[in-house]
């Protein structure tokens, strides 16, 4: 209770307090324990020298390493029952832990191993998914190859197919065409290639129908050399798909193809 009469006790420089048997008398004299330090002795003899040595129980009584708080935890806290968390084989206080050591470790490592296996499986699945997303999709793969029945193409005719979004010319060449193309001297060509290097079988010419000049589609059986003629800028190709006249710099491209049997051609 703060009252002016109470506070005035503390504000006064000197006080004379008379006990009135209601309030306890404030002690006006505080007796502090006097710190006694041993007076250093003059080390004159071995005896007085030995007196300066710290003998007996040397202890650190202050500093950061010294606990300043003592709590008697065992007096007010009940130790919880941990037995649900403990392995059955070592619950008993008389059981030897070394006897069940291997089986307990086996269990721990088995859990770790199961986690490893699952993680490896998941990692592999993720990596496979990302890598396979870089490969060609199914619709691209479906268009990647084209199979052609050769019996449907009569001799002397050039047929156009669509392959990978581009026109594909397949020409069934007659014997006189083959003879003409093979007789062309290679040195006279702009893009020197012998006819034998451009066909696998002399009677079948397989070329991509894109003009090497600016990418128009040439017309079959037209032009000065009886092969292909590009109407855009007047490039003349012969019956081997080689550039003979006009602005195009290169021969018509020959794709990869093979003959699985006598009557089929597979391009791609």
């Amino acid at each position, binding site marked *: 209770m703060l009252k002016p009469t109470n506070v005035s006790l503390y504000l006064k420089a000197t006080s004379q307090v008379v006990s009135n048997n209601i309030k306890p008398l404030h002690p006006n004299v505080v007796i502090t324990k006097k710190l006694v330090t041993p007076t250093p002795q003059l080390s004159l003899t071995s005896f007085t020298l030995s007196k300066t040595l710290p003998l007996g129980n040397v202890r650190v009584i202050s500093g950061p390493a010294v606990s300043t708080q003592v709590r008697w935890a065992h007096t007010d806290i009940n130790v919880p029952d941990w037995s649900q968390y403990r392995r059955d084989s070592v619950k008993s206080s008389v059981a030897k832990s070394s006897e069940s050591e291997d089986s307990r470790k086996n269990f721990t*490592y088995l859990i770790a191993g199961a986690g490893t*296996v*699952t993680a490896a499986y998941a990692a592999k699945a993720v990596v496979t998914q990302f890598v396979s997303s870089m490969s060609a999709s199914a619709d691209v793969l479906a268009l990647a190859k084209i199979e052609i029945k050769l019996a449907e193409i009569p001799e002397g005719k050039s047929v156009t197919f669509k392959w990978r979004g581009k026109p594909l010319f397949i020409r069934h060449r007659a014997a006189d065409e083959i003879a003409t193309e093979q007789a062309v001297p290679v040195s006279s060509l702009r893009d020197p290639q012998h006819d034998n290097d451009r066909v696998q079988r002399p009677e079948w010419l397989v070329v991509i129908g894109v003009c090497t000049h600016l990418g128009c589609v040439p017309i079959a059986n037209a032009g000065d050399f009886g092969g292909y003629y590009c109407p855009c800028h007047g490039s003349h190709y012969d019956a081997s798909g080689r550039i003979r006249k006009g602005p195009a710099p290169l021969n018509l491209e020959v794709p990869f193809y093979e003959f699985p049997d006598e009557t089929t051609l597979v391009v791609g």
Partner: protein
Amino acid sequence: MAGLSSTIYNSVFKRTSTFALACVGAVFFFERSFDLTSELLFDKINEGKLWKHIKHNYEK
């Protein structure tokens, strides 16, 4: 029983090399069985809805 677990511990789990090898070997079988099981489960849940279940109606 203790003999068996000791044998397993000493031959597989004690060394990291054998432990890793066991994991790699186990993941091989785990992957195969997990994939087959999930595939089987998927087919069972989608019974009658997949192309392979109705294929015979449209192809001869």
